[in-house]
Every structure is written in structure tokens, then in C-alpha cells.
């Protein structure tokens, strides 16, 4: 199972930079990295998990056959042939409408319907993905199908060799024969494994459904609990008012007792909810009861205590910032630059630290340094 997860993530994390490397003013050596957006590319002409197919597209696309490019034809769309050569839709129309014809690049006979959209920038990858997909369909044995790890490794080695040969066009007829032979010999196992995989997919789907249902259920319960709580509170208040009206006891005492009761009810409710959530195995809700959220405190220190130590005037005689204020075009203003910030910075630096007591112990060291009086001669000099 671990193998399966590893293999699918191998494709999922693809990051393809579109439009070639021509971003002029990229200040950093990094490109923004993100895993799943519309720009993410998935395997050769295949659908991504959300069911979309994304096609490779670049601003510098050019049809190798007719040399038309995106500048001449903004709607240019390049498709990939069975022999992994790119050409544009109009070339395909022109060459293959009248039936099978040779590829203008490698002379292999091609049909119009056998062209597929490109998903990867590198056609080598495109081919490898297609070959691997084809191979994986038949070579689907698992480790359990082998007596020992040695033979399983040999099998994987063989699969890899066949794949490698197909990808790099080495001994194609011989390799095809090998595949056909393997297929015939293992018909039973292949079918069984297919079924097993389908079952597993089914199982995953069921699991997902169950999880969703549970989530919905939980949301519903939460809503109900809230509703109940509100009703209870309402009832409690009504009771209290009634009592205050009818009873002859001290009003303050009655109120205090009602409060106590409400508190007890609330605490019993949270403990029961903790129990429920811990049974569900989700730590989050359980934690919610133990660590209370605290209201937002904008600033958690007293930096702005210096606010009353200075007043910022609207203008200063400041030769250095003259250029900024003369900014006729408004460029600095449009960019959000404030001269006032420079002044404020200077003022704040001046007042910061006022009223803070000197560090302990500083006094003694200061007094231990001999203070030279006017006319004294330093002792070290004598």
C-alpha cells in the first residue's frame, strides 16, 4: 500500500513553469511553489483528481511543421502524435484529413484520430507516462503473488526493463513479443489483480462517504446541542423571573442560586461533549474544552506608552527630506512613502527609554571608575 501512495504522489507534486523561463523581473531564484492550482499539470492526457485535464501551453509555442507561432495565430494548439512529434491543428487537418499519411518529421504512418493533447512540457515525460500506464495495466502483480522477495525484485526488474526498452525504442519487436507472452501466461493473475484493485477503489470510496456522513452527523449534533442550550437558558431565566415575582425570599439570593445552577448545567454539558468527541477519536474538539479561547488583545506590551512624550508637527525644517516634499509628480505619494515617518522615527528614537530606570548594579561599576577632575593627572600615567 505504501508503494501505491508513493507512486501517485510522484505525479501529483508536479510543478511546471509555464511560458518558458522568460519572467523578466523575477527577483528571487525561487518560483512561487504551490501544488494544486489550475496551472498544475497531471499525467499524459489524463484527468487530475478533480476530473479536469490540463493541457500544456506556452507563450513561445511554435508548430515545427508550418512554423506558425502564437504571435501569428493566438489560437495555436499543438497536439502530440503517436510518434511523439508536435504539430498544430491546422497542419493535422491539412495532412491527415484524406486518411493515414506519413509523419512529416519521422515518416511513421499516422492517423488523424491518434493525436492527443500535450500535458507535459517535455515530450519524453509524455511518452514515459503513456508507456508506464500501458505497462502497469498488464504487469500488475504484487509482492503477495511471489514466494520470496528475490523473485519479486526480479519481476520488477523485468518490468522496468520492458518499460525502458519501450521508452527508448530498443528492440521493439522483441519487447512486444515479451509483453504478449507475459500476458498470455498470466491472464488469470492479471484479471484477479484488476478485480482486487477495483475492490480497493470501491472500499476507499465507501470510506470517504462514511467519513462525510459522520461529519454531517456531527455538525447536526452540534447544532442541536446549541439549540437545547439556548432553550434551557431561556427557561432558566423565565423561572427566575417567575420566582422573583412570587417568592418572598431575598432577591439577591435567588439570583445567585440560579446562576450557580446554570453554571453546573454548563459544566456537565461540556464534560459530556468531551466524552463524545474523544470516542470519535478527534483530538481537536476534546482540546477545545480544556484550553479556553481568550479574547483578542491588540497589543500585548506597552510600547505605545511613549505616545505622550512627543508631538509630531506637520512640518519641519529638514533639508534632507526636501527632495521628498518637492515630489511634484506625486510618485512618492502614490507609492505610499511618508516623510512624516522619518520624523516620527527620529522623535521616537529620541524619547524611547525615557523613564526607564537604569539597570541594577550599573551604579556601583560607574562609581568604581575614578572620575578625573580638572587638573588631575591619571595615576597610570605616572
Amino acid at each position, binding site marked *: 500500500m505504501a508503494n501505491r501512495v508513493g507512486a501517485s*504522489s510522484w505525479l501529483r*507534486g508536479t510543478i511546471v513553469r509555464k511560458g518558458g523561463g522568460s*519572467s523578466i523581473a523575477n527577483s528571487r531564484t525561487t518560483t512561487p511553489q504551490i501544488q494544486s*492550482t489550475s496551472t498544475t499539470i497531471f499525467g499524459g492526457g489524463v484527468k487530475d483528481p478533480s476530473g479536469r485535464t490540463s493541457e500544456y501551453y506556452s507563450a513561445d509555442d511554435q508548430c515545427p511543421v508550418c512554423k506558425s507561432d502564437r504571435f501569428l495565430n493566438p489560437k495555436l494548439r499543438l497536439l502530440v502524435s503517436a510518434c511523439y512529434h508536435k504539430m498544430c491543428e491546422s497542419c493535422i487537418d491539412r495532412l491527415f484529413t484524406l486518411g493515414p499519411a506519413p509523419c512529416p518529421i519521422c515518416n511513421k504512418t499516422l492517423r488523424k484520430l491518434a493525436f492527443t493533447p500535450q500535458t507535459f512540457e517535455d515530450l519524453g515525460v509524455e511518452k514515459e507516462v503513456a508507456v508506464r500506464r500501458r505497462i502497469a495495466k498488464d504487469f500488475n502483480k504484487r509482492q503477495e503473488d511471489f514466494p520470496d522477495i528475490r523473485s519479486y525484485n526480479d519481476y520488477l526488474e523485468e518490468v522496468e526493463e520492458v518499460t525502458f526498452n519501450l521508452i527508448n525504442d530498443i528492440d521493439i519487436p522483441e519487447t512486444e513479443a515479451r509483453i504478449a507472452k507475459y500476458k498470455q501466461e498470466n491472464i488469470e493473475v492479471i484479471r484477479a489483480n484488476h478485480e482486487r484493485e477495483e475492490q480497493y477503489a470501491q472500499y476507499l470510496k465507501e470510506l470517504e462517504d462514511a467519513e462525510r456522513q459522520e461529519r454531517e452527523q456531527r455538525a447536526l449534533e452540534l447544532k442541536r446541542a446549541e439549540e437545547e442550550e439556548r432553550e434551557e437558558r431561556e427557561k432558566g431565566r423565565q423561572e427566575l423571573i417567575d420566582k422573583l415575582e412570587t417568592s418572598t425570599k431575598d432577591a439577591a439570593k435567588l439570583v445567585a442560586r440560579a446562576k450557580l445552577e446554570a453554571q453546573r448545567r454548563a459544566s456537565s454539558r461540556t464534560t459530556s461533549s468531551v466524552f463524545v468527541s474523544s470516542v470519535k477519536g478527534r483530538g481537536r474538539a476534546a482540546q477545545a474544552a480544556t484550553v479556553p479561547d481568550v479574547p483578542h488583545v491588540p497589543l500585548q506590551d506597552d510600547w505605545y506608552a511613549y505616545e505622550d512624550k512627543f508631538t509630531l508637527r506637520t512640518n519641519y525644517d529638514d533639508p534632507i527630506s526636501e*527632495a521628498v516634499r518637492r515630489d511634484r509628480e506625486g510618485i512618492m*505619494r502614490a*507609492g*505610499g512613502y511618508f516623510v512624516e515617518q522619518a520624523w516620527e522615527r527620529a522623535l521616537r528614537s529620541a524619547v524611547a527609554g525615557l523613564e526607564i530606570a537604569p539597570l541594577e548594579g550599573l551604579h556601583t561599576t560607574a562609581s568604581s571608575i575614578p572620575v578625573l577632575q580638572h587638573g588631575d593627572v591619571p595615576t597610570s600615567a605616572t
Partner: protein
Amino acid sequence: MDAVEKANADRQKRWAKDQKIGEGTYAVVYRGREVATGRKVAIKKIKVGQFKDGLDMSAIREVKYLREMKHQNVIELLDVFSSKTNLNLVLEFLDTDLEAVIKDRSLVFLPADIKAWIAMTFRGLEFCHRNWILHRDLKPNNLLISANGQLKLADFGLARDFADPGYKMTCQVITRWYRPVELLFGCRYYSTAVDIWSVGCIFAELMLRIPYLPGESDLDQIKTTFRALGTPTDEEWPGYTKLPDYVSVGQFPKTPLRDLFTAATPECLNLLSKCLIYDPKKRISAKDALYHPYFSAMPYPSHPSKLPKPAKKESNRPLEEVDGNVEFDGPGPAVRANPPNKLKRKLSDSELGGRPIARKLDFTAM
């Protein structure tokens, strides 16, 4: 050994380096610990020899600013020492980053969680701004999360102090998707508002779970932004057409944020829209944002310890203080093409011996 060397050796002895976690163009990151206490740290070793002009600029910036800042929402630089010709930064060890949290599809965010993260981001940012430091590279990847859930601003490699009159600043900062329009138009005089825009984008990303403005090039970034928020008018943002690299990318209509963020509360959208105001002068400041009614409204922000975190087991990638341009060792998730002319598959004995089961690639699931 002179006094300086001795002091350095003493410092070096306080920290022990363990295994390597990641490597970037200018630094290697190791997991480490404090010898005396066993406390986990991350040690960022800056490669010095490679650069003609001496130490890499971002290393200098990082040390310069982190050395002065101590706040619970800013990563702590614990120590700096040199070993042979390398410079080593000892940083607080942090488990994960906000990007990993956003990407982990198994996690469900409550509105209170988003509120807590944004509040912590603003708090850290307010601390930087009050100390006259611009971060200039805010993105989920640089918001690290500690074991107890505290979010911390990290990667001060592009930071600088601001408000010095008349000095030009570079506009080639901030990862493109989080870059405000004034920088895309080449503005050389800017201020704290650039960081606020980034926070706005992160805020939106937390709600959408995908990047809000993913432009494919700098020009496309302007278009993407205008498509999402409408082309600004001259009253809305006076003088922006005079910015050095201004280009006209056409008129786009304004669409209300409500159309995209259907589940957000009115306060939430109000704060988001104030972070994404085109005119930097009108954009909300970090301090004002912290006093915004969004944070005081119910629900309270989640307690940091309760915030969702990605599951531990999947973390085969390093999640510590590393730059975006790090290449991880070991088989990464990215698809790598076989070089077409590599004609013989190599399978060494050591490979067979080291790994008992060959990895099987499964393509049927697609």
C-alpha cells in the same frame, strides 16, 4: 588564540549540529541542539566561499535585523558563530509553516483558526514596523509555526529598515503572488503598506485554500490583480499612472469580495478589503488592523495550541527555517524527466542491497 577566536570557539561549543535538513543556494540548514539543555534548534550555515563579493546580502540582512528583535511572533536568532570559513546562524526550531498547513487537505480550518493566524501575523508585523523594519517577503512559506502553535515571521533575507528620507529602495522584492501593485509598477519609494498587501493575500489564501492572486509573470500579476479587484481609478489611487513602470492592462470591473468569499463575515471582508486597497496611503496599518472589529467579534481567535497542524508522518520534507529555493535531498515529489540520451539503466549493487524492495510505480490509478 586571540580573544575573538576564543569567544567564537566558546559559542560554537554551546551548539551541536545533527543531521542536515535542507540546502539552498546560499545556506545549508541543519537540525541541532543546545548542548547544555538539549533544546532543539535549527542551524543555518551560510556558504561564504562561493560569493565573489563576500557574504551574501540576505545573510547580512537576516543577522542585522533578527539580532535586534525579540517578539513571540518573530523567529528568534539565538546565536551567531563562525566555523572555519562559514557563518552559522542558530535559530529557534520551528515544526512547520503555514504553507504546509494550507496544503494539507485533511485539515479543516474554523473561522476562529484563521482569525488566530492573522492576528499573530499582524502582531509580528506590527512589531517589525514599529521597529522600522520592512519584512518584504511575507508569504505562507515564511510564516513558521512552533510546536505550541505560535506563528512566527521568518526569513528576513529581504528585510530592510525604512523611513530614511529620499533613499531609493528596490521594487524587486516580495514573492510575486504577494507583491502589491505599486511595486509591480516599479515604485522606488514605499513603506509599510507593501507588507500589509502581502498579509491581505495570505488572509485570502487561508480562506480559499489556494493562492489568491497567482500571476504567471509580473505583467500577468498586474492583470490578475486587476481582474480580481477591478482596475483602480485616479480618484481611488491618485497619481499611480505616473509610476515609473506603469503600463495599462485594460479596464476590469470591480467585483464585490462577497462573490468569492461567500462564507466570510462582514467584519472579515471589511478587514480584507482594507488590506487590499490599491492606494498604499489608504491601506490599513498593522496597528490599526489589530484594533479592527474583526478580531474582537465572536468567535474568539483559537488558542494557539488548538490550531490545526499537518500530521507528523508526512513530513519527509524539512519544515524548518529554510528558504524557498531549497532543494531537498532524497527523492522529491517533482517529476523529473529521464535525460533522453541516457541509454542504459544503471542499477548498482549498493542500491539493491540498501533497499530490499524496489519501488513499484503505479500508473493505473490515474
